[in-house]
């Protein structure tokens, strides 16, 4: 019998990845990956360049299929349903699984239009409602105070860090369950990085976050779980604390202590 507290702590896996393989043409980029992404936790994906970590995160919302030569096998269960199934709507998947990219990519539109783009394409037309969503999302992305007086200015007038937070707000505007972040701070300066990291810590109370990062410190600071990838293999996956204090695999230890990668 489990105590009530144990039941409370027991979180569900939102993504269950089973025997996932992925090829770019003839090059295998992911090899038999098995991993569970837990709900309302931050999962960090680390590993050297070219290890498949970006590919992995882009598979979770099937963005990887933008490259025509990609082939996959295995399954990714999202809320228990395989996202590779024929009947599974890729647009619906991406509506609940948002993504923040390495380089901030706001649309060349106003700050307001950027945030309400998602709600608008998903059928929300009411002006007042859209304004509410914009305010709420920008507040959640810790950007509201900086932009509230210039919502109609072009998003390209914002600094890099602000643009990245705008992209986060743009995701939040359609209330996703999951946020995928592909090295979201690698194009930002240390101060902007610090602000975005702070934001991620805020967001992890409400969203499931999967973040790819090159920074060991970032992974250690903000994540609950860490997965270490090496040339397409998942080497080690576990609680961040455990991985960083006593890694089971020599290769993980070498990587996190900076001996290679």
């Amino acid at each position, binding site marked *: 019998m489990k105590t009530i507290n144990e039941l409370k702590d027991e979180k569900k896996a939102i993504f269950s990845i089973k025997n996932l393989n992925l090829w770019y043409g003839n090059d295998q980029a992911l090899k038999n990956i098995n991993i569970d992404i837990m709900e309302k936790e931050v999962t960090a994906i680390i590993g050297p360049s070219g290890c498949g970590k970006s590919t992995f995160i882009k598979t979770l919302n099937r963005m990887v299929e*933008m490259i025509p030569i990609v082939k996959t096998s295995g399954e990714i269960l999202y809320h228990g349903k395989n996202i590779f199934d024929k009947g599974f709507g890729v*647009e*619906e998947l991406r509506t609940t699984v948002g993504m923040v990219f390495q380089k901030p990519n706001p*649309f060349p539109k106003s700050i307001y239009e950027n945030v309400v783009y998602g709600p608008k394409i998903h059928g929300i037309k009411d002006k007042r409602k859209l304004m509410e969503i914009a305010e709420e999302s920008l507040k959640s992305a810790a950007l509201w105070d900086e932009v509230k007086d210039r919502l109609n200015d*072009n998003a390209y007038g914002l600094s890099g860090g602000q643009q990245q937070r705008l992209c986060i707000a743009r995701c939040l505007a359609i209330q996703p369950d999951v946020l995928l972040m592909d090295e979201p701070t690698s194009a930002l300066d240390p101060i902007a990085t610090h602000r975005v990291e702070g934001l991620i810590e805020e967001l992890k109370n409400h969203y499931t976050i999967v973040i790819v990062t090159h920074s060991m410190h970032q992974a250690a600071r903000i994540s609950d779980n860490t997965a270490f990838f090496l040339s397409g293999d998942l080497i080690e996956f576990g609680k961040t604390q455990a991985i960083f204090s006593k890694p089971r695999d020599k290769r993980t230890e070498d990587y996190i202590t900076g001996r290679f990668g």
Partner: protein
Amino acid sequence: MNNNVREIILKNNKKQKKSLDNVMPVIFFTAALISIITTIGIVLTLVFDALKFFRAVPFADIFSTQLAPLAANPRFGILPLINGTILTSLIAMMVAIPVGLTSAIYLSEFATEKIRKRLKPIMELLAGIPTIVYGFFAYSFVTPLLMAVIPGLEAKNALSPGIVMGIMIIPLVTSLSEDAMNSVPNALREGAYALGSTRLEVAVKVVIPAAISGIIASFVLAISRAIGETMIVTIASGSSKNFTFDITKSIQTMTAYIVEFTSGDAGSGTVGYYSLYAVGLILFVFTLLMNLLAQYISRKYREEY
């Protein structure tokens, strides 16, 4: 390895390189100058000879709907020609813009790389067909086809050459719009797809707005092309100098007027002869305005990315 590489470089630099570096800019500049001088020359010729026409004919007559240059009592109202040009160009744009833009969207956002690589050259082949062939096509194929559908269509009319002119400029619109859409960074598309957009939403709500300046510029360039187009309208729209908005009737455009007159018997030095320069000048002003408009629009609506 020898250590005298640096010596050789220094020696070589002193020799031929310098003299060539001095001569080339002059050659480049002269080449650029040729086109500029030609343009200025054309404008000056047009303006001076057109002035002779504007002095000889009262202003009220020029902006009238009566055009009869070879009559015993010649009339030089330019409105029928302007009307003819605008009419055929409008018809052309009504064909070229929707077809050209949708095929550009298809090529840029929907077609696979393989299809795109094959289709684009074929489309651009359309642009290489001599306009006289299009004119013949309009007169001998499209007009009879239209006559079967539209009763009362004259053998020479504004509709048929307008449509064919539209077909002719489709590749221009497609090619330039597609270039504009293609240069929209993929990061923007990814951002939109990641929010659950469909392909159509990405194309219409992200790519087209981001490329709108280039797309509009392609429209305006296409209009310029239609206004200046000569052979098709000369062959298929006849030479009626009536002022009419009826597209089933024969009309004459500014360009066709110039063709008719220069191949006919306008005596040098007559008012009719100088009227050619006046029409040429007005054509020039039309296309100049179009180009300025294109520049203004692309500056105003530019979504920088």
